């Protein structure tokens, strides 16, 4: 087990290196370097830029040097904890990202818990009551959940809430808490707002997960060991929970690897529509205003979260399924 985890951990730096190269390539992709766009922006704002200042900026970021040197300079600065300054917000990137990152993670985790807490009972019910009225209802619900883009759900629910209840469900805080320092009251305020984006964001995942759970469990329920346990007089409820459900959960664990990162990065759209203070809308704005250093760091963060998600699912899977452990060692 330990050996397995160490093996996975050793892969981490390598993956991070490749992802950082990809992130760097992405921020280099737009035409012109960012100093050009910075100067253009300053000039549009009416302030003249001295040539010496331009040269200093280029020197600082190594823009007149080959790509590899630029990459090394960029990654060294990040590794040293210097995330640079956003040219668009005129604020340090670290300050911009900090709290938003925490909220992104919190929203992702809440949604994740919500998804599992709802999808698994639905999946179990649908499989054990196959072709019942509720099973059909859930099947239809699942199809719609997958077919509806999350931002559509967000827009429709937002509109309905506004039209019939006159409430605006955007944001994560009440107006009086937005700029307030963290306190217990602010945290409670957050909890009273976070459920809405959580449900919207989780619908699609809930639908998928419930479908997978139902299919997995149906396969297990047909197996001979079920007959055996019934013949021995085990109660149906205990039997289902003890054997087939546990087996059916295994394949679901492996979905954590892609689902958790998807929750973090997939919230970009919902967060934009609902105006949530997460890193998603920050990335969108950075990309539109070509604030490429900020964008690069956010993409790097998303990649890091993706790696962590995969790692968690790998470890969980090895922990739960002894076959994988044995195979590796």
């Amino acid at each position, binding site marked *: 087990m330990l050996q397995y985890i160490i093996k996975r951990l050793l892969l981490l730096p390598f993956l991070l290196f490749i*992802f950082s190269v990809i992130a760097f390539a*992405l921020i280099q*992709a737009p035409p012109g370097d960012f100093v050009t766009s910075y100067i253009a922006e300053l000039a549009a704002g009416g302030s003249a830029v001295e040539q010496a200042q331009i040269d200093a900026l280029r020197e600082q970021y190594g823009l007149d040097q080959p790509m590899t040197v630029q990459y090394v300079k960029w990654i060294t600065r990040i590794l040293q904890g210097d995330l640079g300054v956003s040219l668009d917000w005129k604020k340090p990137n670290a300050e911009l990202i900090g709290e938003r990152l925490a909220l992104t993670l919190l929203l992702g985790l809440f949604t994740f818990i919500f998804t599992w807490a709802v999808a698994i009972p639905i999946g179990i019910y649908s499989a054990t009551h196959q072709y019942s009225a509720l099973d059909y209802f859930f099947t239809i619900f699942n199809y719609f959940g*997958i*077919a509806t883009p999350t931002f559509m759900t967000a827009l429709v629910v937002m509109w309905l809430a*506004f039209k019939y209840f006159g409430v605006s469900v955007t944001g994560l805080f009440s107006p009086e808490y937005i700029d307030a320092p963290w306190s217990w009251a602010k945290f409670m305020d957050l909890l009273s707002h976070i459920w809405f984006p959580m449900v919207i964001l989780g619908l699609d995942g809930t639908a998928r997960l419930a479908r997978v759970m139902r299919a997995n469990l149906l396969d297990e329920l047909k197996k001979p060991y079920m007959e055996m346990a019934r013949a021995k007089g085990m109660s149906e409820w205990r039997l289902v929970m003890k054997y087939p459900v546990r087996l059916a959960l295994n394949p679901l664990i492996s979905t954590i690897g892609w689902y958790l990162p998807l929750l973090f990065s997939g919230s970009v*759209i919902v967060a934009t529509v609902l105006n949530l203070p997460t890193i998603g809308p920050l*990335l969108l704005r950075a990309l539109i205003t070509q604030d490429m250093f900020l964008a690069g760091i956010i993409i790097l963060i*998303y990649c890091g979260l993706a790696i962590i998600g*995969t790692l968690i699912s790998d470890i969980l899977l090895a922990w739960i399924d002894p076959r994988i452990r044995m195979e590796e060692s």
Partner: protein
Amino acid sequence: MTTQPSAKSIPPLTERDDDQHAVGGGLSGFDASAEAIYVAPNWKLVWWRFRKHRLAVFSGVVTLIIVTIALVPGFFSTQPPEQIDSLRTFIPPQRIHFFGPDGFGPYVYDITGQRNPTTLMMEWVPDESKPIPLGFFVRGYDYEILGLIPTNIHLIGVSDPAIISPVHFLGTDRLGRDQWSRLMYGTQVSLSIGLVAVILSIFLGVLLGGISGYFGGWIDMIIQRLIELLQSLPPIPIWMALTAAMPRDWTVEQVYFAITIILSLIGWTTMGREVRGRFLALREEDFVTAAELIGCSKPRIIFRHMVPTFMSHIIAASTLAIPVMIINETFLSFLGLGLRPPAISWGVLLQEAQNLQSVATAPWLLLPGLAVVITVLALNILGDGLRDAADPYS
């Protein structure tokens, strides 16, 4: 593509319950009619099985209708999609009435606008004294079928040429453009983006997945690691960054193809895995061994025996991949990173409904979302049906 033409060429079955045996896969009856199963080619078995899934067949019909709209959007629309009318903005959808005082004859009521004295917004009410009769196959604005045949016949429209006020089945947007016609043209772009992106994915996936599964060894190793790497990337931020990097001065066509390439860059990995898995599994099959033993050449084994067997899987997998691509294009365009006006796609249309304020003013701007939902639902159910039918021996 195998199932579609087969619809017209169902084998001449002697007995109606013949396909029951075929579909059930049961060997209960060895009567003469059941023999059809043993000699039927793969695609026939797939079709017989698919036919059983009523909902999937229905979804197939819905998909066909949507594809028809995508092929000739001009025929289904009532106005040129770019036509602006600054006097007729934010008109709500006009209800179609089917039965008038003298029997069947669809019509809508004309609308009149008044300016609300306090909000200064135009408010539109139906004018029940002025019904506008609608007709089918009426003459309207000029358009070209598939860019080739110029015509001016439309499926539905105002039948009386003397009436000049246009009808808006789905209302108008902030520039007074007809939402229904725009939706029809958007169908063409959104559906074809999904299709082109999936075709690119299939090409890459079959090529690299095939190479991987066929050659094995270190090539397989490298391609598999590449797939794993691409799949562990967070797709949404990567797509956003790539689309944001497109130069602003690109033409609509350039952006269109760039988006399909960007979407298939990660999309091919699923297809690649699928193809490789099929290749590996089929290599062990008896009929492949048999073909090898009687001395078939490698290309013959691959193209005559292996490819037709997993073709149905590829078709099913790509049917399920198209809706994913459609949703991805929609959200990219919705965020303003994908297609940009003057291009019309469902995402571009939904951009008009991006914030609460515009949705509250004109809720009908959300209707293109319904088109997304219907299309994705139809393709998903169709794809599920095809996937279940793809393995007729199971």
